[in-house]
């Protein structure tokens, strides 16, 4: 049975007039009352989110749980699991249960796409995944298909993904907001900037937006250095320094950050280093604190991991209790918000006799008003969430959160 919208009521039949025309004064009062009561019952049924039906809805999860992005993939998953626990605790009250169907894409986009199609065939209406733009893009393109599941990306935010499909939603705000933020920062702190970036669609798109921002701000972009798969870090560092930047921006989201930063330090660079991804913060602190210390300013400018607020404090506390780790330095909050925003969307869907379709979820997400632990998840016209950014600085031997910008 097709679910009707909450705000549309059954059409009233045209009243029959004794002479063919309606005369409202011609019905007895008990009939009007009966109709009203019946109407109210229908409305009540229609607006009850399946409380009586106790639906279980499958949510697919496709993440890199092994391979190069294993650490971050598992952090995202932990956030999702925490959200799943909370949702489950509400279970009966919500009127539905969520069942996670988790799969490992191993950091391979073809595997991710294959898993997406598999889940689609299984009738999974919504999938969370994956981590990087490169991993997510094929799935997002597939989501253009009207029969495909909704795809909610917790973290991928490359330009190619922006508005790619009405069924694709970005929980992490699009990259150009961050790039503008970085360009504005450099306006006040740099005469000449060099950028080292991962040579993929994401890295190239970040570079393009930083470049445009710097141009508008009259800051010279003195060097653009793509990071290949197996780089000679020493040689790359020398090439970067040959251009005499006073600030180096590192657009690298994997553990290649570490040898890059370390080589810069060892080669004598003591200027400003800006990193645009915060996922490896703890690794940086543990593995190369001496190198971070040598720079005049070591900054991470990235989308926030946790916004201020009670809900974020609760998340932090629960996460620490369950996993024994500090989520404020990981993207776990994005995994959490990905599932929570889906759950919030489901609350707005009327009782369906057990069937929840991708269209419903899509519409629910379009109406989202969810304020997540990583910021507001009100999706714009291109299905991307609003911005919230962190600025971290390396002070007194550790990375400290200096400011959050909403």
């Amino acid at each position: 049975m097709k679910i009707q919208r909450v705000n549309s009521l059954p059409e009233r039949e045209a009243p029959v007039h004794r002479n063919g025309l309606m005369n409202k004064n011609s019905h007895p009062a008990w009939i009007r009352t009966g109709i009203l009561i019946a109407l109210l019952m229908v409305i009540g049924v229609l607006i009850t989110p399946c409380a009586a039906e106790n639906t279980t809805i499958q949510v697919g999860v496709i993440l890199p749980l092994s391979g190069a992005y294993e650490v971050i993939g598992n952090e995202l998953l932990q956030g999702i699991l925490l959200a799943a626990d909370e949702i489950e605790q509400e279970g009966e009250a919500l009127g539905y249960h969520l069942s996670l169907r988790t799969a490992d894409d191993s950091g391979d986009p073809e595997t991710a796409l294959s898993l997406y199609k598999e889940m689609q065939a299984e009738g999974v209406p919504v999938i969370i995944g994956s981590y990087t733009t490169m991993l997510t893009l094929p799935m997002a393109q597939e989501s253009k298909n009207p029969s495909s599941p909704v795809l909610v990306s917790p973290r991928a935010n490359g330009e190619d993904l922006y508005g790619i499909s009405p069924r694709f939603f970005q929980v992490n705000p699009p990259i150009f907001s961050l790039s503008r933020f970085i360009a504005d920062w450099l306006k006040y702190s740099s005469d000449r900037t060099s950028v080292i970036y991962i040579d993929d669609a994401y890295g190239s798109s970040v570079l393009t937006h930083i470049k445009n921002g710097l141009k508008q701000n009259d800051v010279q972009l003195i060097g653009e250095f793509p990071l290949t798969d197996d780089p000679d870090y020493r040689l790359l560092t020398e090439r970067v320094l040959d251009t005499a930047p006073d600030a180096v921006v590192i657009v690298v989201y994997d553990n290649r950050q570490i040898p890059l930063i370390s080589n810069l330090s060892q080669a004598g660079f003591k200027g400003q280093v800006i990193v645009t991804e915060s996922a490896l913060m703890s690794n940086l602190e543990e593995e190369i604190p001496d190198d971070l210390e040598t720079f005049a300013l070591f900054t991470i400018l990235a989308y926030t991991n946790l916004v201020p607020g009670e809900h974020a404090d609760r998340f932090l506390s629960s996460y620490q209790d369950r996993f024994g780790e500090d989520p404020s330095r990981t993207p776990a909050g994005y995994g959490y918000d990905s599932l929570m925003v889906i759950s919030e969307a489901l609350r707005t869907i009327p009782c369906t006799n057990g069937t929840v379709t991708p269209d419903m979820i899509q519409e629910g997400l379009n109406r989202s008003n969810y304020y997540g632990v990583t910021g507001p998840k009100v999706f714009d016209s291109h299905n991307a969430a609003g911005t919230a950014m962190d600025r971290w600085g390396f002070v007194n031997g550790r990375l400290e959160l200096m400011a959050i910008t909403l």
Partner: protein
Amino acid sequence: MWNNRIQPKRIFAIFLFFFFLLFACTIAVADEPVYIGVLLPLSGPDGQSYYDALTLARDQINAGGGIFGRPVEYVLRDTRTGDLMTYANSLARDKRVSVVIGPYTSADLFSIADLFIRYQKVLITPSASSDEIYRAYAKNWYVWRTIGNDGDVVPVVMDHIRKNEGHNVALLSVNSSYGKTFYDWMPYWAIEKGIDITGAQEFSSADEIPDAVRQLTETAPDYLVFVYSGSVSEIVTVIDTLEEDNSSVHPYFIYPNIDEEGRISERADPDLLLFLLSSGLWRITNSSTMTTPLPDNTLILMNPEWDVGFSEEFSAISGNNQAGYIPEVYDAALVSAMVMAQFIANPEKSPGNAAMSLLTEADGDPVPRTPNGFQEAIQRIQKGDAPILTGATGPLTFKSDGLDRQVTNHATYKIEDGRIVSDPVLLTRTGKELANPRTPGSVGNSTIIPADDYPAGEFWAVIGALSKDWNNYRHQADALTIYNLLKDRGVSDDRIVLLVYDDIPTDKRNTKPGEVYHIPDEKEVRKEAYPDFVGEEVTKDLLPAILSGTGAESESGMLRSDENSTVLLYLTSHGSPGGDLLVGEGNETITPAGIADLIGDMYKQKRFGRMLLVLESCFSGAVADAITTPKTIVMTASCADETSKAASYDPELSVWLSDEFTKELVSQLRNADRSLTLRELYQQVYYNVRSSHPGISTGNELLDLPAVSFFGGVE
């Protein structure tokens, strides 16, 4: 089986292969850029300007065709955002680079010069201006600069003060290699120009300035010459202090950064900006300035206004022309390119020889400062000429012993009615004038006293180096050299009492353990020496014990001279204003009066027939003033008001090996015959010592004895 028909074809094919391979390699080299290293601050308000100046020079050279068709490119290292030594090592080892523009400061240059000399890379600094650099690296051919030597502008400062009716001057200088040039040379030129120095101090931090200014102005100088570190707030502090005290002393500022309105501007420090950024105050502008007007009658030494053409060219590419060395950086780029052209055209020469042959032998009309002019210069270099370049600061001509420009680039100004006005001064560098009665070199004419008319007696020597530590290497080397001179003239160890701390041969920084040198790579002076007192034995009390013949426990350390003896007493150490000789680490001193008493006592005890006291120390003229003992000549390295200077810098050891006065004294003595009188010896030493005014007692008949009689005796 060899096929005769195929063989020629095969050979030809092989020949073709190698021909094309060689051709390809040639093309590859021909297309490859000519790299020039840069080791300068290249960011921040000043550094960005230097970056722009380098870019301008490079682009102009490349616009004409580069160097033999190859474009010039830089290998940049920004020392404002990098570690100097790490960057220096990287550039020294970089095979692409043979010439490096930099470094920025004189102290930086001393830190890295040895490294670049070892790797045979030429350094061309646009801004390190200390005279010490000239004394250390002239004739080395690997160190050059487009900035003038500050030692050459001090006489200009003195003439400027004289022109403005100044007769008494005090000096407050930053305690750095840069400031030291002014501290060392102002007293020298004050003597030459007839100006009195009423006081001189150095400061290490800005909060020492107010008290120093007050102490110096107590002596009521006409002008207070102030040499700052580069931080404008120091100049503001001087102005404020003089104003608070309602002082009549006028300031004289050396190379301040002043605008056309005669105001000094403080710009936000780029490091402070970064600190504010990290603290969260990042939405600030970095162009805010505070300005302070200079008081009337302030005298200023500054760079002159820029060449109009260069000013237009630079303004077209850069909005910031406030930095201090922009034209010099531009010129350093030009010079570097031309040295590279010389090196490429003459690959059999080392980079240092290429620089020397181009820069010291340049002649003809200067080529114009245009892309075509640069190409003309490069083509002439290829033909074996040494053209004179025109830089942003004028013709780029260098002294014959290398390193320094022949002409310094400076201008003098004053503040009148709140405005800065040009106040030109004609440089009257006179050198040492014996005719000037104020200069102690005037000792009259010499007529040698025949040796038979003046019985000599036994010759004795007491030689003492009273300082310790590696950085005072030269004092011990001086003393050992005098000792060796006497030994070479046949004086036995029994007649020499030698005091040296003797920590130099075993210092871990001595790359030649056990050895001491007075001049790099020349005769070693320690191995054949037998000191009588070493280490902690060398104290303030030892000298009286030796000279009196009592109290010294060492049998060999006894001075057994008598009333007929000729005694040479040679002492070397640091001297402080007033003439005190420092002993050991400086916590003990021997005063001029103390030395005078010692010699007076010796005379009373009939322990010499004649004595020559030679003092190698700063302000040693003050000791000479205190000694009036008969039969005593005092020869000093400097006047009472000036420092004496080190000589013979060894880049490998990073230390000065000798003092100029002793080095010159020994050189003259080694070439002297018996006919040279002490007077004549002094005159020759006086003229040849560049950096101080050696002194000698006057009106004493001993001056006409053979000089050698005081350095080993007369047979």
